[in-house]
């Protein structure tokens, strides 16, 4: 595992690293409580384009910000992908349009890292449709690269792939282009098949061994370590917060899903939350309890990178 770094306007990111997802606006109030603490755990924060648009200036975390394209909206019911010629957009049922120009303009104003607009390929999708979406994702990546004005905006090309062949196909098209990194999407529905994900990662790495590789939506403690050891540089997830709301306590030793672990029997975690909160705290429903549990979960995910570094044998 090569140690990679990425210089951004708001600081240097040393890989591997976990990037916690945050939101803005009123929909997820727990995010507001957790956000001030993100810089204690993370080197970079991930925000979706949709929520980033609701960010007020004073709310911006004092960290590098990775703003994705909002391409997951292509999965919403009633959403339409529209090929505009030079690029492709998403039109939602409500009439909102997510287009590469809008996304890039926003990223140039607010982001340190931006991912190009892609179209999610869920498992089981018809192969022709899948290839079509992949091609449109390449088109958007090319458009963004050509139209980027802010030179210190780190631009990651979004890749959609469903197996090692499709991943290799994608990297063949993108490998020599001057992107700053690559972001692999569509893995969230595939987290139960970590071997598939790792095959895809290996395929990418064979053709692009050097640039940073990010995987969207991977937020399970044991999966993270495998991905980092397998060549991924960063992942993001909001899982730590959602799990806290459901009173799920992350434990590195538990399999690929976070299970409810009886806090009465948990020992050994020395994260700040576990140092402060007493037995039974994490089992209670309540905002302050969920807050404490979210911090613990985030600490566990953040440690995955450190554990991966320690596990790697050169």
């Amino acid at each position, binding site marked *: 595992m090569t140690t990679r770094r990425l210089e951004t306007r708001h600081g240097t990111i040393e890989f591997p690293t976990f990037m916690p997802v945050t939101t803005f606006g009123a929909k997820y109030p727990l995010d*507001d*409580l957790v956000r*001030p*603490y993100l810089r*204690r755990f993370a080197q970079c924060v991930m925000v979706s384009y949709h929520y980033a648009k609701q960010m007020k200036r004073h709310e911006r975390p004092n960290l590098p910000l990775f703003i994705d394209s909002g391409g997951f909206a292509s999965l919403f019911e009633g959403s339409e992908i529209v090929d505009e010629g030079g690029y492709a957009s998403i039109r939602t049922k409500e009439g909102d349009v997510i287009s590469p120009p809008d996304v890039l303009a926003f990223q140039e104003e607010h982001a340190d890292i931006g991912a190009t607009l892609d179209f999610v390929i869920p498992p089981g999708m018809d192969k022709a449709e899948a290839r079509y979406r992949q091609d449109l994702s390449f088109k958007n990546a090319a458009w963004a690269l050509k139209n980027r004005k802010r030179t210190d905006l780190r631009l990651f090309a979004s890749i959609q792939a469903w197996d090692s062949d499709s991943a290799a196909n994608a990297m063949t098209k993108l490998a020599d282009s001057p992107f700053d990194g690559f972001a692999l999407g569509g893995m969230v529905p595939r987290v139960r098949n970590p071997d598939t994900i790792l095959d895809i990662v290996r395929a990418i790495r064979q053709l692009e061994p050097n640039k940073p590789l990010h995987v969207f939506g991977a937020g399970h403690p044991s999966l993270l370590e495998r991905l980092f050891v397998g060549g991924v540089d960063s992942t993001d997830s909001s899982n730590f917060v959602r799990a806290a709301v459901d009173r799920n306590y992350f434990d590195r030793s538990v399999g690929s899903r976070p299970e409810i672990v009886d806090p009465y029997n948990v020992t050994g975690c020395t994260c*700040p*939350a576990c*140092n*402060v*909160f*007493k037995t*039974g*705290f994490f089992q*209670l*429903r*309540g*905002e*302050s*309890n969920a807050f*404490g549990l979210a*911090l613990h979960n985030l600490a566990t995910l953040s440690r995955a990178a450190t554990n991966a570094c320690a596990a790697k044998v050169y």
Partner: protein
Amino acid sequence: MNVPMQPKLFPPQAELLKHGYLQSEDNWLICAPTGAGKTRMAEWAVDRVVQSDYRAAYLAPLRAIVEERLADWTDRFPHWQLGLFTGRATKKAARAAPKDETVLLFTAEKLASYLNNWKRHLRWIADLDVVVIDEIHVLGDPNRGAPLEALIGRLQRINPFLRIIGLSGTLSNHQEIADWLRARTFVTDWRPIPVEHRIRRFKRPADKVEILLEEVGGTLAEDGRVLVFVNSRRRAEAIAAELRKQGIVVDFNHAGLSQKQRARSQDALKAGELQVMVATSTLEMGVNFPARKVIIHDAYTFDGERFGPLSIGRYRQFAGRAGRAGYDRQGESVLLLPVWHREGERYLTAEPEPARSALFSTDNLLREILVEIAGRLSISREHLEVNFASRTLWRAQGGRQSLGAYVSHLIQAELLRETEKAEHTYLSTTALGRIAAQMALSPYTIGLLVDVYRSVDAPTLFDILLTACLAREATPKLGFAFQEIDQMADVLLDTPSALLDRKADWFLAPGRGIQEKPLLSAVKCAVLLFQHTQGDSIEQLAADYDTYPADLRLLREHVGWVLDAAERVFGLLARPKTDDGEERPHDAAPSLQQANARSIKLMVQYGIPTDALGLTKVPGIGPKRAQALVVAGIRTPAELRDATPEALAEILRLKPGTVSGLQKDARDVDWTGDNSAQAQPPSSDRLPERSNKQRLRTGPWPEDIDPYRLRRALELNIDHASVEVLRISGGAEPHRIDVAEDGLRRRTYTCDCADFKKGTPNCKHVLRARLEHHDQTLLDLLRRWQDLKPQALRYSLGELWIRSGRTFDAFHGRDIDYQGSRFLKHTQTKRHNR
């Protein structure tokens, strides 16, 4: 690290570094004597944080200490961006919350107020990496301890990354506190300047002067300086006067002085302009004063209610002031004790009293539960147990296992409500509870306001003022002297007041949390403040009632706070409720109670009567100008407008240009004077029927026994009794009674107090001795007091004064855990044997 290490580290500092302190991520509890370098240890931790782009906080119990720290750090650490946050929580103050400062200095009260709205302040709270808590032994203080204890728990829960560094010079149960904080301890008794501790013995209190002069003289002869600690303000002034007569350059310092006066004398001592400073306990905590010798003049201290022996902790705090680094090779601490005081050596050898959680006080615990629920850090009974109680020192020291009873009390008091949702039961504050939490008021205070609102149909201005003075927050509680009753008679007898017409027992009913002494004090405070609204200046009132202007000003400020609460509570109670029990917002005119609360608050704040309230509407007219106008006969905006500019300029001592600006502003004020509810001129219908002023006395009484002295006697303790000698304490000084018996077994008593020497054969000490000998005359008098018939409060202050205090309760069987119960048993036996 940018904090310069001094050229040579003190041994404790070097030792602490060897423990890995600079790299440590732990909490720390550092216990070291004054001068051992604790502050430097804290500065290392602060600077480390400042370098790391996070923030540090410093917390101390007194504003004076925080301000001293600010001044020192501003000087020495220009790269620290310092912010000072003290004072009461108000809306304006909330806007003055931390912004970009890197080192935040708080009083505990102020930080606690921010934590009550922690979500609003989360941005900077989350940035805190370390908080230094100075004088952390204050955890054991009955008033300051509870907010500090609760604050620590809340801070840790809101910001689990925070490290705590506690500093103390006098904490005997440091391991217990460290375990609670989950902190490492560092304990040392090293001092840069060793202190020699001595005890000087006196036979009679009058001998103390000579000892004092000798000790002071000895140190001054060697060009040293002396700090003398005494147990009362009057004593500080008297001793300073006595020393001044001897040609010594001396000043005194106590809480009754204004801030300016205190600062002046403190600066003079620091600058070396004084040889001796005489002070009460205000200086003992942490504020830095150099002196070679410390003399602890009084071995008995007053806690606000009664005199008791000086505690070991307090002695250590006093003695810790002795010896100045760089000036003295050795410090001296001299404690004056009577010859018969057997346990003097304890002060030199024993550990200070352990700090015990102040949450063992019901009022404190109720208040913190309310704050916890109001801040939504806990939302149910279970949350209170797990989130809050389990993290308290109270629980660690054996506090009751369940908070259920306290929660039920708050629900009953309409400060909390319990609701069911999805098979769970949740707690939330009512609108009343939110007022209590936001304004940091005791639940008892809110209960009192509600009580008065509901039971008094048309409360007068005095009623509301008296209610505010009854609140626990209305401090300082002025001492009530028996002889002041007649002084207050005019106000007491002529002021319309439904509360003064109530029997005293109404106030003393169980559940109201009011006892005789606080009731008396509240009446006095209300009378004084009411007189202030009628034109008496603070200075005049202070002189008339033998108190200090600074105390009255502070009282006025605190009562104003409670009156603010009264206005809010009354406004709330006037609103109709929804089916869920929530108050509807409404736009109707304020109720009588609400309007009166607002009026009396302005009257007290400005020191003006009802009919001059219009002046408060004119911008630029503050209390001083309002009072000047009232004295000159100008009471309304219209009269202000119509006065000649020249006359106004003379009254207000302003330039004519400024005056015309005020008059212009007065033109814009729409004031009709009697705003129905607000101005309530006294009605003759409300005055109690009587033909003559009633004398506030206790009825027929033996000539040679002063009821005042007999009542005072009940407060005294017998420390030693033999056939011929009794030692009595419990007052400002201990005294000796010699007893002689003639052939007929009639006793005569001789006391060494000044009162006896002036010709009072039955001084309070003699009366106490006689009670100890079961003097039947005195016991009969006491029994007579037991049967006092209740009257309206305005007539019964004398009886209340007599009944106040635990000793009286013990004599009359209401409280059997006091030594006076022996007399009760004796009187009962006597009755039985007749």
